[in-house]
C-alpha cells in the first residue's frame, strides 16, 4: 500500500488516498470517492529524481502524489511497467561507485578536451581553412586599429622603402605558403612592437625600427611575425577562445557565465598558456628561417635585450623628453639589480603573461645561434 494525495484533473483540491497493487493491477481508494482500479500498465509514472514526491497519472488524468519513492520503484519493477528502465538513472545516482566513476571520467574528459582536444581542433581547423578565408578575417582589423591605437609612421620614407624592399627580396622569398604579405609602418607612441594579422599584414612600430641597430635585428622580428601568419596563430586563437567560451556555457548551463569573474580567470589563464606556446613556435620559425637565410639568430636576442632595457628606461623617464638610448642603456647595464628585479617580477607573473619569459626566449635564440655557427664552420 502506498499513501499519498489524489488530485482531480487541473484542480488543486486534494484528498488523502491509498494505492494498492498486486502484480498487474492497482486499486485506488480515497476518503471521498469511489475506488478506482485498473491495469498498472495504464499508469504514467514520473521519473525518480532524488527524493522529490512521485507523480502517478491515471487514465482519467487525475493525479496521485506520494513521497514513498521506494514503494513506487518496487511497484514499477514487479509489474514490468514500460517505464521501469527510466529508474536506471536514479540507480546510477544513488550508487557511490558509479558516481565516483562519473566524477573521474568527467574530470579526465574535461581536462583532455581543454588541454589537448581544443588546441588540436583549433589547429586542424585553422590549417584546413583556405588561405583566402584566413586573409578575409582581418580585412577590417587594420582599419579599426588605425582608428584606435595606431598613428601614422613618422619614419623617413626612404628608410621605410629600404626595409620594405629588403623584406620583399630577402624574407618573402623564403615563403611559399601562398599568403600575401604586406609590411606597414605605424607609430604607437613610445612602444616598440610588431604584430601580424592573419591576412599577412605585418605592422611594425617606429620605436622598434629606431631601437634596432641593424637590418638583421629587424629581420628577426619580421620573421617572428611571419611565423605567426604561417602557423595561423590568429585564427587558432579565435577558434580556441570560441571553444572555451562555448564549453563553459554548456558546463554551467548559463549564458551569463561568460561575464562572471569565475569564468574569466580560467579562460584568461588558458589563453595565455596557448599564446605563450604560439610565441615559442614563432620564435623557432624565425630562428630556423634566419639560419636558412644566413642570418645569425643571435640578433633576435640582441633586439629582445634592447626592448627590455627600453621598457625599464621608459618607466623612469615617464613622459616628456625622448629617452636617449645610448646613455640610458649604458646606465642600465651597470644596474644589474634592476634587471634582476624585472626577471623576478616576470617569473612571478609567468602564468598570466601572453609571452614567454624574455630570458627563456633569449636563451633559445642563443642555442640556435650556436647551431648556426656550427653550420657556418662546417
Amino acid at each position, binding site marked *: 500500500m502506498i499513501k499519498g494525495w489524489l488530485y482531480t484533473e487541473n484542480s488543486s483540491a486534494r484528498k488523502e488516498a491509498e494505492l494498492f497493487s498486486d502484480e498487474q493491477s492497482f486499486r485506488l481508494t480515497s476518503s471521498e470517492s469511489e475506488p478506482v482500479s485498473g491495469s498498472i500498465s495504464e499508469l504514467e509514472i514520473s521519473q525518480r529524481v532524488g527524493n522529490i514526491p512521485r507523480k502517478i497519472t491515471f487514465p482519467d488524468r487525475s493525479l496521485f502524489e506520494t513521497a514513498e519513492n521506494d514503494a513506487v520503484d518496487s511497484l514499477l519493477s514487479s509489474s514490468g511497467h514500460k517505464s521501469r528502465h527510466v529508474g536506471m538513472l536514479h540507480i546510477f545516482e544513488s550508487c557511490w561507485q558509479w558516481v565516483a566513476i562519473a566524477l573521474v571520467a*568527467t574530470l579526465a574528459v574535461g581536462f583532455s578536451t581543454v588541454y589537448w582536444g581544443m588546441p588540436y581542433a583549433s589547429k586542424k581547423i585553422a590549417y584546413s581553412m583556405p588561405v583566402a578565408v584566413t586573409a578575409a578575417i582581418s580585412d577590417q582589423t587594420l582599419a579599426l586599429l588605425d582608428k584606435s591605437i595606431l598613428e601614422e609612421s613618422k619614419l623617413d620614407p626612404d628608410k621605410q622603402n629600404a626595409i620594405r624592399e629588403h623584406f620583399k627580396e630577402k624574407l618573402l622569398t623564403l615563403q611559399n605558403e601562398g599568403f600575401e604579405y604586406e609590411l606597414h609602418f605605424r607609430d604607437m607612441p613610445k612602444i616598440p612592437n610588431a604584430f601580424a594579422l592573419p591576412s599577412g599584414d605585418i605592422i611594425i612600430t617606429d620605436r622598434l625600427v629606431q631601437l634596432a641597430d641593424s637590418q638583421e635585428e629587424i629581420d628577426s622580428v619580421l620573421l617572428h611575425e611571419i611565423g605567426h601568419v604561417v602557423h595561423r596563430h590568429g585564427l587558432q586563437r579565435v577558434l580556441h577562445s570560441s571553444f572555451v567560451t*562555448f564549453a563553459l556555457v554548456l558546463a554551467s548551463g548559463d549564458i551569463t557565465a561568460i561575464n562572471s569573474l569565475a569564468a574569466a580567470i580560467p579562460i584568461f589563464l588558458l589563453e595565455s598558456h596557448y599564446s605563450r606556446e604560439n610565441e615559442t613556435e614563432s620564435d623557432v620559425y624565425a630562428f630556423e628561417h634566419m639560419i636558412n637565410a644566413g642570418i645569425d639568430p643571435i640578433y633576435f636576442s640582441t633586439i629582445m635585450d634592447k626592448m627590455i632595457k627600453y621598457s625599464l628606461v621608459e618607466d623612469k623617464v615617464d613622459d616628456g623628453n625622448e629617452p636617449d638610448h645610448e646613455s640610458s642603456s649604458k646606465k642600465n647595464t651597470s644596474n644589474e639589480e634592476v634587471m634582476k628585479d624585472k626577471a623576478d*617580477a*616576470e617569473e612571478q607573473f609567468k602564468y598570466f603573461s601572453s609571452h614567454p619569459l624574455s630570458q627563456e626566449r633569449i636563451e633559445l635564440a642563443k642555442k640556435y645561434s650556436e647551431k648556426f655557427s656550427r653550420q657556418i664552420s662546417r
Partner: protein
Amino acid sequence: MNQVDQPQMAASALPFEFTGTGGEFFKIWIMNLILTILTLGVYSAWAKVRTNRYFYGNTKLSNSSFDYHADPIVLLKGRLISVALLLIYIFLGNLFPVAGLVFAVLLSLVVPWVIWRSIQFNARMTSYRNVRFSFDGKLGSLYKYILLLPFIPLIVAVIIGAVVGYQSYSSGSSYFGTAGFVIITIGLFAMYLMVPYIQKAITAYYINGHNYGQGDLSAELSGRKYYLVYLSLIGWSILIMIGLSIAIGVVAVLAGVDTSPMLQGLASAGVGGAPDISALPTLGTLAALSLPFLFVGIWFKAYTTAKIRSHVFANTKMDDVIQLESNMGVMRLFVFYLVNFLLMVATLGLAYPWVKVRIARFSADATLAHVTGNLDHYISQQQNYQSALGDEMGEAFDVGADVGLSF
C-alpha cells in the same frame, strides 16, 4: 468555510522549506555532466529538467512541493537554436568585428521577445499542488523596459548635444562641440540614473504578469525605495573607501612598504609588446591589496540583494490571501556569499552542487508566506486557468536569461 465564517482568523506565517541536500544533488549533477559530455551536449536538455525537478520538488510550502514539467525535447529545440546563434555570434565577433556588431544589434532586437517567451514557458512549466502558474505580461512593455527606456536619456542628450554643437559651430564660437560633448556625457550619466527605476519596473512587470491558477499575483513597488537603497549604497561605499585607504596607509607605514612603485606598476600594466611589469608588486601584495575590494564588492551585492528582496517581497501578494516576506539580513547574506565564494575557489568549482543547494535552502529559509484565512481552502479553489487557452507553446526558448530576478 470562507472568510465570512471566520472573521477572527488572523494571518498565519508559513515558512518555505528546502529539503534537498548537497550530497544528493552532487550525484545528480555529476551524472548529468558526464552524460552531457558523452552525448556532446544533447543530454543537457534532460539534465536541465532533472535539475529543475530536483530543486522545485524539494522546495516546499505547507508540506507540498513545487514541480517542473518541461519536456526535454521541447527544451532541446530551443537550445539548438540558441547554440547556433551563440556560435555565430562568437565566431563573427572574433573574426569580423563589424559584422559581429551588426549581428549583436540585430540579436538584441529579439532579446525581449526571447525573454518574454522564456518567462511564459517557465511559468507554464511550474506547478504547485497540481495547478500551474502562468504569465500574461504584455510583450510591448518588455520592449519598452529593455530597449527603449534605458536609452531615452542618451537619445535626448544626443539630439540636444547635436543642436547645441551645431549652433556654437555656426556662430563661430571656439567652444565648438564642447557643450555638445558635455551634454552627451550627462546623457550617459543619466542612463545610470535610470537603472534603479528600470530594475523596479521589470520586477513589477514580472510579478504582476504571473498567475497561479486563477489567482493573481501582484506587486506594488516603490521606485523611491530602489533609489534609496542605491543612494545609501553610495554613502556606504564612500565611508568604506575612506576607511580602506586609511587602513592600507596605516599598514603600509607600519610594514615600511613603499606603495608608489606599486601604483605606478598598476598604471603601466597592460602595455603591449615586451612585458612591462618590472615595477609590479609581488603577487602576494597584489592579492592582499585586492582582497578588501573583493570583500567590498561582495558586501555591495549582499546589501542591494537583501534590501531590494525585502522590499519586493513585502509588497508582493496573491489575491489578498497570501503576502510574502523576506527576512534576509545583510550581514548574514554577506557571510553566506563569502562562504560560497571560498567553497568554489577552494574546490576549483567542484563544490558547485553544494553551493546551489545552499543557495536554495538559504532563500527558502529567508522566505515566509503570510496567509489570511485558510491556505488549503484558497488553493483548493484554484483551477488551471491556462488549460482553457490551450497548451501549445511553440518552441521554448529557455535561455535562463538573467533579468536581475534571482530570488
